[in-house]
Structure formats: structure tokens, C-alpha cells
């Protein structure tokens, strides 16, 4: 009897243990989804589209992944002549500021390449499954957003890693980036090693995606998302870079968002108003308070101390009339280590904050006007160009002489562009697309222009460093990718 019980208990224990195979097979992920089955409703597709925007936010506002404040919103200013390195800062991004980057430099070079393609991949995932939605406006709007976001990510890639069509004679035939489209069967093989296409073909595909998106996308999708205005505004910029000046004008004319007034302008940068903001990557500063603080690339504030990384160039800020509303939108006096600086005011934070956490201003109505004015000038329509420019000036200056013509008009358009869009990630591209050199003033970093001047003053026109190197990791992994000349 005793033995019988022992056997019984032993068999019981063993049988319990034998029934465990199913447990191994039945386990499924707890907090992740299945990309093959998830997208089946409007809500899930919108989650996917918002995912694409979040990837764009990642590389615009910088991410801690690459341990630098390397955002696409700020690096193009650091690369150019609007700002100067403050020697009392942490010297972040100095290798970019000094144009010393190489293929395995961390920060921006690895960030944009990796994150922008993640945005492209996320967009392609949606585009590829779009037929899970029934025909109609909802489907069109989702598809339009995904196409536009995909085009925009590719545009950000090609303008930084490759030449801009108007930059030089050979630009269109030079190396572009890889344009990944699910429709063309570019996705699905994780071991693919695609080669670079040309700049010309990249711009053609960007424009084609955007034009298709313009047909599909809704008129208003809410803050932080692309809509009809956004697509046309982006098109006006892309056409300008591509030298399609009539198209710039046509696209700009489709944009309905008004320019922020002088009274509204300061509030644009503290997120008090979205007037004039057409494309922005938004952050919910409450529930997403740990997201990237975009403004930290320029400065950090502790009590009375403003520890600036980069401050406004003395010559540049003094070219802005003090009566111009933008003078105080651009800078304020920051004190650190007993020195005063022309500290950057944009992206300091929301109203009353100085934590640097604020929406990314990607494209504003003012730029569309400037794009249009420049396009009109380049088509020889000087009167119209002046008229368009004055739309902006009227909202920025109490009075101005006006009436410029010829070369002077172009210079005014460009200087207004520099002032209006300073610190928002434009300056490097505006110099680059015209094939000019970057020439920094020889002033120091202190408020009055004294202090330490830049280590490197000039990046000559045509220098290879106008194109970022393709990250070394990509070169290592993809035998078909060609490095940019010079690296």
C-alpha cells in the first residue's frame, strides 16, 4: 500500500511535468504587436502614421540614442554661419561646427541615416497594407499622409547626404540616396544591399510621392500631422531646391495658412499659437516630458546661468534691426561664467519655461512666401517677387524702405530668409543649394563680439563636406553603397 502511494505521487509529479510542452509553444509577446495583422482599422492605421511622425520627431529633436543634441532642426545652423560656439559650453557638436566629421563620426551623421530610413520603413509598412481599409476618404487620407512622410524623410536624406540640384552643374547626375518604395518591391528582403540612385531620380520620386499625396490627403489632420497645406508647402521647398520655379509659385499658391503677425510671432516659439506653422513635429510636454529637449542643443538654463552651446553670431544678430520683432524672437542676453552672450531664444521651451522642450518647427508660412518670392525673382518677375516679399516684411517691420530691384532685391529676399528662418535648420541648405561658401565672421562668442572667434572660418564653395559622409556602418553592411567623394 505504502509503495502504491509512493508510485502514485511520483507518477503524478511526472505527468504534471510532462504536460509542459504546450506552455513553450503558446507564449506570445506581451507588449508588442504583430505587424502582419495589426493594421486593420482606421485607428490602427493612424497609430502607424503617428509612428512615422514620431520617427521624424526623433531625428529632428535629436535622440539620446546617439548621445548628442544632433537634431535636424539645429545642426544645419551649427554647420553654417548663424551661430558661433560658446567656449563656456559643453562643446557639443564641435566636430560638426568645425567641419571635421568623417564616416564614423557619431551624432547627426549616424542619426539621420538610421532614423530617416526607419521612418521610411514605417511609412512603407502602412502603404503596403493600405488595401486593408475600404475605399474612401479615410483610406486616401492615411495613404496621403504616409506618402508625404515617406517623401519628406527621403528629402531630408538626400539634401544632407547628397548634392542639391541647384547646387552645381553635376548635382543631378551625382549620387543621391536609396529611395525605398514598397510598391516597387524595395522592401521585404532584410538582406537587401541597395545601391544609391541619382539626385535627379530621388527628386523625381520625392515630387511624385508628394504630388500623389496632395491628391489624397485631408485638409486638416490636427496638430503635428501632415495635411493638404503641409504637402503643398513641402512641395514649394522641394521645387525650389530642384529649380522648378514656376512649380514653386503654383504650390505656394495652394497654401492657405497665413503668416503669423508680429504680435503672434513670439508665441509661435513658445507654442502659445500655431499660426503660420504648417509642418511641425509636436510633443506633449506633459505626458512626454522625458522626450528630447530640442532646445538643449543651443543652451541649458540653471537658475540665472544660461549655459549656451551655440550663440548668435555677432555680425548676424546686429544685421537685424532692433525694431524688427524678430530681433528679440531670435536672441536674449544669457549669462554664464561672468560672460554675456547673444543666447538663442527660439526653442527655449513653452511659455514661461526654459527646459528646451517644445514642438519642432519644420515649415512655416513665412518660408512658403519666401520660397515664392525667390522663385518669382529667379523667373524674372521682380515686381511680383517684391510684392510677395513685402507680405512678410509688412508683418515684421514697422517701416522699411522697400522698392529693391535686381541684385539688391535677391539679397534682400535672402537676408530676410536668413533672419526669418534662423536657428530652424535652414541656413546650411540655403547656402548649399546656391553653391556658395560658408563664411563666418571673425567675431568672438561674447555679446559684444569679443571673446573666442570660430576655429574654422570658411568652408569653400564646392567643398566635399557640404555632403555628409554615408555612415561607416552602412558602408560596412552594404557592399553596393558608394561613399561620397572626399571621405
Amino acid at each position, binding site marked *: 500500500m505504502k*509503495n502504491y502511494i509512493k508510485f502514485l505521487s511520483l507518477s503524478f509529479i*511526472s*505527468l504534471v*511535468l*510532462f504536460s*509542459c*510542452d504546450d*506552455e*513553450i*509553444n503558446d*507564449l506570445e*509577446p506581451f*507588449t*508588442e*504587436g*504583430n*505587424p502582419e495583422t*495589426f493594421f486593420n482599422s482606421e485607428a*490602427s492605421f493612424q*497609430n502607424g502614421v*503617428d*509612428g512615422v*511622425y*514620431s520617427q521624424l520627431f526623433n531625428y529632428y529633436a535629436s535622440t539620446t540614442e546617439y548621445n548628442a543634441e544632433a537634431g535636424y532642426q539645429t545642426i544645419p545652423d551649427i554647420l553654417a554661419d548663424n551661430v558661433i560656439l560658446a567656449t*563656456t559650453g559643453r*562643446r557639443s557638436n564641435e566636430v560638426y561646427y568645425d567641419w571635421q566629421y*568623417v*564616416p*564614423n*563620426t557619431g551624432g547627426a551623421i549616424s542619426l539621420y541615416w538610421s532614423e530617416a530610413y*526607419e*521612418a*521610411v*520603413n514605417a511609412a512603407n509598412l502602412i502603404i503596403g497594407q493600405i488595401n486593408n481599409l475600404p475605399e474612401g476618404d479615410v483610406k486616401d487620407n492615411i495613404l496621403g499622409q504616409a506618402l508625404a512622410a515617406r517623401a519628406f524623410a527621403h528629402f531630408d536624406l538626400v539634401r544632407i547626404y547628397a548634392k542639391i540640384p541647384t547646387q552645381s552643374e553635376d548635382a543631378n547626375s551625382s549620387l543621391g540616396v*536609396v529611395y*525605398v518604395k514598397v510598391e516597387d518591391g524595395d522592401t521585404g528582403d*532584410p538582406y537587401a*544591399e541597395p545601391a544609391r540612385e541619382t539626385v535627379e531620380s530621388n527628386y523625381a520620386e520625392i515630387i511624385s510621392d508628394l504630388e500623389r499625396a496632395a491628391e489624397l490627403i485631408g485638409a486638416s489632420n490636427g496638430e503635428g500631422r501632415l495635411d493638404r497645406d503641409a504637402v503643398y508647402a513641402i512641395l514649394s521647398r522641394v521645387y525650389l531646391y530642384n529649380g522648378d520655379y514656376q512649380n514653386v509659385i503654383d504650390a505656394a499658391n495652394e497654401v492657405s495658412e497665413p503668416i503669423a503677425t508680429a504680435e503672434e510671432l513670439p508665441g509661435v516659439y513658445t507654442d502659445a499659437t500655431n499660426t503660420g506653422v504648417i509642418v511641425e513635429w509636436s510633443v506633449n510636454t506633459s*505626458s*512626454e*516630458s*522625458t522626450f528630447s529637449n530640442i532646445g*538643449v542643443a543651443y543652451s*541649458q538654463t*540653471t*537658475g540665472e546661468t544660461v*549655459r549656451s552651446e551655440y550663440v548668435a553670431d555677432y555680425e548676424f544678430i546686429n544685421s537685424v534691426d532692433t525694431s524688427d520683432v524678430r530681433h528679440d524672437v531670435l536672441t536674449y542676453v544669457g549669462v554664464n561664467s561672468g560672460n554675456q552672450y547673444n543666447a538663442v531664444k527660439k526653442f527655449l521651451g513653452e511659455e*514661461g519655461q*526654459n*527646459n528646451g*522642450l517644445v514642438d519642432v518647427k519644420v515649415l512655416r508660412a513665412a518660408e512658403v512666401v519666401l520660397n515664392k518670392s525667390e522663385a518669382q525673382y529667379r523667373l524674372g518677375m521682380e515686381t511680383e517677387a517684391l510684392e510677395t516679399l513685402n507680405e512678410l516684411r509688412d508683418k515684421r517691420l514697422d517701416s522699411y524702405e522697400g522698392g529693391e530691384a535686381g541684385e539688391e532685391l535677391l539679397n534682400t529676399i535672402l537676408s530676410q530668409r536668413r533672419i526669418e528662418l534662423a536657428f530652424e535648420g535652414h541656413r546650411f541648405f540655403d547656402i548649399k543649394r546656391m553653391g556658395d561658401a560658408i563664411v563666418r565672421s571673425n567675431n568672438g562668442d561674447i555679446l559684444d563680439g569679443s*571673446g*573666442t572667434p570660430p576655429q574654422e572660418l570658411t568652408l569653400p564653395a564646392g567643398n566635399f563636406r557640404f555632403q555628409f559622409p554615408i*555612415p*561607416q*556602418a*552602412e558602408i*560596412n*553592411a*552594404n557592399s553596393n553603397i558608394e561613399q561620397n567623394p572626399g571621405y
Partner: protein
Amino acid sequence: MKHKLHAILTLLLAFVVQFTFAQEKTVTGTVTDDQGLPLPGVNVIVQGTNNGVQTDFDGKYDISVAAGRKLVFSYVGFATQTVTVGASNVIDIALDVDAAALDEVLVVGYGATSRELSTSAVSTVSSEEIETFVPSTSVDNILQGKAAGVQVTAANGRPGQTAFVQIRGIGSVNAGSTPLYVVDGTPVDQSFINNLNPSDIQSFSVLKDAATVSKYGSRGANGVVVITTKQGRSGEARIVFRSSLGSGSKIDDLNFEMMDAAQKLEYERQLAELGVTDAQSLPGFTANPDQLELLRSYDTDWQQELLRNSYIQSNSLSISGGDEKLSYFLSLGYDKNSGIIDRIDGFERISTRLNTTYQAKDWLEIGANISLARSTTDLPRDRNNVQNPFVAMYSYNPYEPLYSRDAQGDIVREDDGSPVFNPTTQGFPIARALQTEPEDNRNFLILGSLHADIQLSDKFSNRFTVGATSNRYNRTTRSIAGGVLNSIVGNADFPGSQTDNYELDFQYNVNNLFTYADSFDDVHNLSASFLLEYNENIYTDLFASSRGFPSPNIPYQEVAAEATSAGSEEERNILFSQGLFVDYNFDSKYILSGSIRRDGSSRFGPDNKYGYFYSGSAAWNIANEDFMEGSVFGDLKLRASYGTAGNQNIGDFNFLNLLQFNTYNGSTTAIPIGVGNPNIQWESQAILDIGVEYSIFNNRISGVVDYFKKSSQDLLLNRPISQTVGDENNSILSNIGEIQNSGVEVSLNVNVIRNANITWTVGGNAAFLDNEVKELVNGEDIINGTTILREGEEINTFYLPRYAGVNPANGQPLFLDSDGNLTSEYSDSYQTIIDGKSPQADFEGGFFTSIKYKGFGLRGDFVFKKGNYVLNYQKSDGVAISNVNQNLYVEAFNYWKEPGDQNVLPSPLYQANADQTTTRFLESGDYMRLRNLTIDYNIPSGFAERMGIDTFRIFATGQNLLTFTNFTGDPEIGIGSEETIAPEDEGFVAGEFSLYSYPQTKSYTVGFEIGF
């Protein structure tokens, strides 16, 4: 379904065997030495089984055994005796003094054996050696230098930090090299090991070769550390109380010196005059003589200001005893180590344990081991900027004082009169931040196991064990309103922020071991065990963040103005295994063992869930042969083993494509996070081991020599893919690599003097290790920052541009380009494999010397390492020209000044090239360290008895008192900088670089132990 049937059939077959139940009876007796004095702690085992007991303090034992079986009595330093159980219920034994080191009980996988009958390479560390190292807040640190082939590197010097333990080299790249820890039969995650009380541990057994690790199948590849805790012995209750107090400090900077205020100001002046623009805005150049005078007078020693001497306290109390049926061991421990960072609390642990066994029936023993431990620690940030005090103490300028000063040199005060901490040129006052950015961690670990031993007959037995570990981790991180970080990134409308994390790691393990043991013709001894095991890990976590706190004194989110985020997660993985282990020996001369195990894991796709692991081993006890009669050898054994083990320490669900959910502007996002690989499967290792164990001259000299070769195959490597695919990590995990480790391990123990009054023992162990990368994806290099995996080369060989000194003509730094040509240009593309230089040592180990004279003892333990290289970023920082705005090494003065200067640093005018990370900062990490020096005194037993106590011991211990090295800084590096790359991150290589992680400390401790 098919495999399930198989398994059930196997089990049924086992039951068909006719059981015969012999009469069990309880045999008692006393074991004495040849002088008739009782011997406590003698192992009494029923031959050929795992059934055994130890004698109590009076040498008494009782064991239940069937007549006709043999009892084996063994004790270190005495000859083993074997007695057949006859009619008598009393067996008294007198053991002869003899060298018989090979007779100790070895705790091995799923049971124990005697060293004589073992076919396996196992290193053990006994409680005696463990006690020498108490207090050590994490038990894994104790293993350092103690066991051949076990490479232990302190991760850093933070109290409570676990160590890196590696057995026989690096066996994996991404799936971890940490061995499996098994405490009393239950697997325990390595990260919880620091919550074990070292005083509770009876022994460590480190399983190294296939004969033992194969039994652990898919988790055995990195070796297994089996920890056995203490059990009570029958007899009167024995109470031991131990208490010690000590203090530690940072080990002095080795081979370098920081500038003082006057030196630093002078250096700034020199560089500014040379034309280094960065220096021209610094006070050394801009200050007037009066200001300079004032700055020089501050002369701050930042190590002094930011560090302190730690306070180390350790108390433990244990009560143990038992009777014929019951045994118990009860303990309580308290450990505190404040750490060397001033202004924070450090590490504290309270632990308790109860181990009991009860003979419920003559055929049934049940037992429970339960331990509870709570530890608290504040984690200072381990990152490469001044938010880490160990960065701050080197980078803050010595002419900047702890508190801000005005132009007159008076301390600046807050409105409430408290002094303002100086943010310094670095813009961050760490001394204040340590107080305003507190991080508090609490761990509560429950470790328990229950077992039932059923003696079905004299031949069949069954052991059923259920074990569980549950660790609750709580963390509270705060940025206090008005504090350093809150004013930088906080929201002005919501002062103060706080995050609470709650993590629960629950693991349970159920196993059943059914054993058959038999002897034939007195010489054929056979045993076979069938194992079933189920293991499940369940991890859940929860976190919440809020902002806007009314007072820094209420660290609870209940009072916060606004909750900002919250989340919860769950993870699980399951392992289900069956195993068959067979041991055979012929008259204890020829021994054969074999094992096979099948593991199923939830971590692999449907087609790859199951893996088989096997081993075979043999040993020949030459000393037991007749022809060895009368030789100098007390023991001589040859053994060999070969087998396989696996590794599956990768994340869950790597075989699937997944979507990750997050938020964007407050809305849910769904983003593809990676490309899964449905084909991944186990990493596998094939291990060959050949060893010799010997003792000669009556055990005066004993030792072990092992040769091993370990091939790690199907390594899970990240195959880099084009980033245009848009994968989160830009890689796909694939079974593609092969690494081979081979080496020789030697350990030796010599009793130089052994007589009644004085004994002097010296011993040590060393491992000579060689490793090679055999196969990678398509033969392509895997470059991991500054190290590389390349076929045919050592694993993680450094990959750096080569520095070629300074051009004596102009002070320009020179490099070798990719083709080896001398050039003054620098490019990252000059990165080259630096042959033979890697973070792995070629040779490491430890040795000790121990002298006992009457009651006095003196013991010194050394550890050493040779042949490894360390990329010394700390030194690079300390002489970087671009760091002119922070403090530097005095060596920075030694820059090129005029043509012809040799053995100098580059001219500061070539800052950009000079500061590059090159072989210039790659240094040999060779060192030898006096890990431990202990002096103790045991009062004579006669005197103790008169005082009514059994034992009284006082001791004084010094740790890390001496270091011999040429490395600039401390060569004992595990983690370089945890926030740069943490041990759990991919690509982490222990000891690769130095970068301001918590430094090692030296300490002095005094204490006493009383037993009654």
C-alpha cells in the same frame, strides 16, 4: 505530440522495473581521529548514492541505510574508510591521518559525489576560504583568484555591485558569458547574487567541463556555479556571532597625478601664449595678479571635497543544530557599506535564512531552505560627464572652490544663508546634484526551495524539488524642485519630478530526479538518474512619473500636481527539460559517466524549440591500482570528458517581426522595431577536457592540471544589414559565429610546514587562456567601436588608428596610415587591428600564503592578470588639449616645446589630431594585487571553555592594500562607464576601457567571532 509519447514511454519503462524494498535501518556511531579525538564534519555517504550526512561537533552521526550497503567515511586530510553495514546498528570509526584530498564531497550538477569518483573538472571554494573574505558585499567577488579557470573581475568598486564571472573565457558574443548560478538546486539570476549573505554559504562548486555542465543543457555553456548553503548538524545548538567594522577609501591614483591650482593656471597661461584659442579665455591667461593669487589660494582637492572614507559594518548571527530527525540552520545578517561618495548613503543589506530538514518517515526526508534579504542602495550616475562625481573630481579645476565665491573671495550664499555650491566651469555642481537628484533602490529577494527525498528501495530513490526566487525591485528617482537638473530640464510650473519603478522577477523551477543505484559483485557500481525539469521566468514591471511637488520632504507621487507618465510590462520565458545521467565505476578504479538532456525553450521559433546536449567522460584512479602500492602518490587520477552545452541568453521573441507601441504628441504610435529571424536556435558549445589530479608525500603537495578546448558554435551574432531597410538595430540576430577558447589550468597546494604547532600552506592557481574567432558572417569583420571580431584573431581585439609618436622637428603627432606609412594626417579610416591586444588576459589567477602558529593566523591572498589591454580614456581625457578648461594630469606639461624634444606629448597647436583616440591610449592592463590580508587569533580552547564558550576569534583584514602595475590609473576595470555601455548591452566587453566608473577601494576591517 510525438516527443511527449516518447517521454511517457520512457517513464513507464522505468516503472516496470521490479522494486525490491530492503529493510532500512538507522546506523549511528562516532568518528574519531587516530588519537581518539572526535572529528566533526566527516562526510558519511552510502556508497554509490547521493545519500549522505556529516558528523556533528562530537563526531557523531546517524544515517538510514540498508544492511549490506557500504558506508564511506571521508574527511579532508584523513584516509577514507569504507565499511559494510552488517547486523550492528552502531559503527564507530577511527580515521587515519592520510593525504586524501580527493575524497571530499563534490557538489556537482543535480547531486553530489566524492572527488575520487568524479570524472569532471570542478573547482571548489570552501566556507573557510569564504570567511576570509567576509565582509564582501557580493559573494561573486569572493571567487576571484580562488578557482583555476574562473575569471572574476570586479565590475567596479560600488558597494553591492556584482562581479563579472567568466568560466574558461568568453563563450559568447551576444548571449552573455555569465555562468549559471544554482543555489541549493534552484537557478538564481546573477544580478541577485549580491543579496546572498556570504556567511550562509557552505561552498561554491564551479563546474567547468562537459561532464557536469551538459547536465544543465541549454544554460550550461558558460559554466555553472553551484552554491550550497549551510545546514545544521545534529547535536546541541551552536550559536555563532560575528561582527566587524571597517573603513575604506579610494585606492590612490596609480602612476599619475592631477595638477594643483598653481600648476593648472600656469598650464592655461602657457597654452594661451602658444596661441591655443580655447585657453585664451581662461583665468590662467585673463586674470590679473591679484585674482591669480586668490585663485591659487583656493587650491581645491576635489577628491577630498567629493569623496569620504566609507563606513563598513557587518554583523551576522547563526544558530544551528538538530537531532536524529531534524536539522536546522538559522541566520541573520546585516551589512552596511556607505561607499566613498560623500553626501549619499551607500549600500545596506539585511538578510535572514532558515534551512531545515526533517526525516518524516524512514523513507521520506523533507526539507526547506528559505532566505529573505532586503538591500537598499543609492545609485550615483555612472556616466561620462560631471553628473558622475568620479568625473567631476578629475575635471573640476583646482582653482575653483567647492562653494561659489564672489570677486573678493567670500562665499556666495543663498537667501537662507546656506552656501551656494559652485557649478564650476563645467556648469554642474555635482556636490549639490547628489542631494537634489537622489536615486534610491530597494531590492527584496526571496529565495526558497522545498525538497522531498523518497527512498523507494535500496536501489531506487526519487528527489522532488520546487524552488523559487522572487526579487522585488523598487526605485525612486527624483529631481527636487530648485535642484540642479530640475532647473535645467524641469517645468517651471511644476517644480520637482519623481519616477517610481517597480519590477518583480519571479522564477520558479520544478524538478524531479529519479535515481537507480546498484552494485554488482562488489566491484561494479552503477547509477542512473532521470530528470524532468520545468523552469519559468515571469517578469513584470510598473512605473509612474509625476511632477509638481509641494515639498522635497514628501517623496510620494500622491502629493504631486500632475502625473506625467506611467507604464507596465510583462515578459516570460519557459524552459522544459528531460535528462538521463548514468555513472558507472569498476571498483573505484575505472569510472565512466554519460549524460543526455533535451531542452525546449520558448525563445525560439516553432521549428527550433528543442535542443539536445550530451556528454561522456571517463576517469582512471591510478593510485587505486595494486602496482601503485607504496608509491609517493596518495592520489593520482587521469580523467577526460567531452560533450556539449547550450546558451540561450537572448531576448524573447527574436524570431518574430514585431511592432512597438509608444506615443507621439499624446497619441498611440505603432512602429516596426525589428526584423525577426525565424531560424535562430541555441548557441552550442563543444567542450573537451583532459585533467590530472594528484597528491604526493602524504598530501604535502597536491594539485590539478587541466587542458581544455571549448568551441562555441552557432553564436548568435547581429548580422549588420543595410540601414536603408529601416530596422531599429540595423541588424538581424543569426546563428553564425564560432569562437574557440583553449587553455591550461593549474592549481597547486603545498603544505610547507605541517606539525602540531605550526602550519604553513601556500597555494595558488593560474589559467593560461587562448582564444580565437573561427567564423563570422560571410567571414566579414564585426567592428564594435574600438574593438573588432575578425576570423583568425583573438576575440575583441582592439581596432584603432596607430599612433607613431611626436615629430621631434615640430611637435606634430604622427600616425601610421592603413598601409603602415608614417603620416602627420589623421583619419578614422586608419583604424587597424592591433594584433594580439585585446581586453582578455592570457594568464590570470591567484595565490595565497597562510601561516598558523598556535592560535595565530596570517593569510595573504593575491590576484593577478597578465596580457590584457585597456583603452585608457581617462588618461586620454587627462592630457587632452581640448580639455584645457578642466583639470588635467601633471603629465600634460610635458608637451613638445622645441625642436629635438623627444618622449613628449604632441604640441598643443595640433589639438585636433593630438586628442584623437589612438593606440597612444592603449595600455597594458597587467597587474597583481594583494586582495586580502588577514591576521587572526583564536583563543585556546581550554581558556574558551572556562569562559563558557566554544570558540573566540578576533581578526583584522585589509583589502586591496597593494597593487603592482604600470597602468596609468587602476587596472582592475570591469565596467568602463555604465551609461556609455552597460553589461546587458550588446557589444559590451568587460574591461575594454576605463571611463570613470566607481573606482576600486581599499579597506581595513577589524572584528571578532564568538561561538558557543
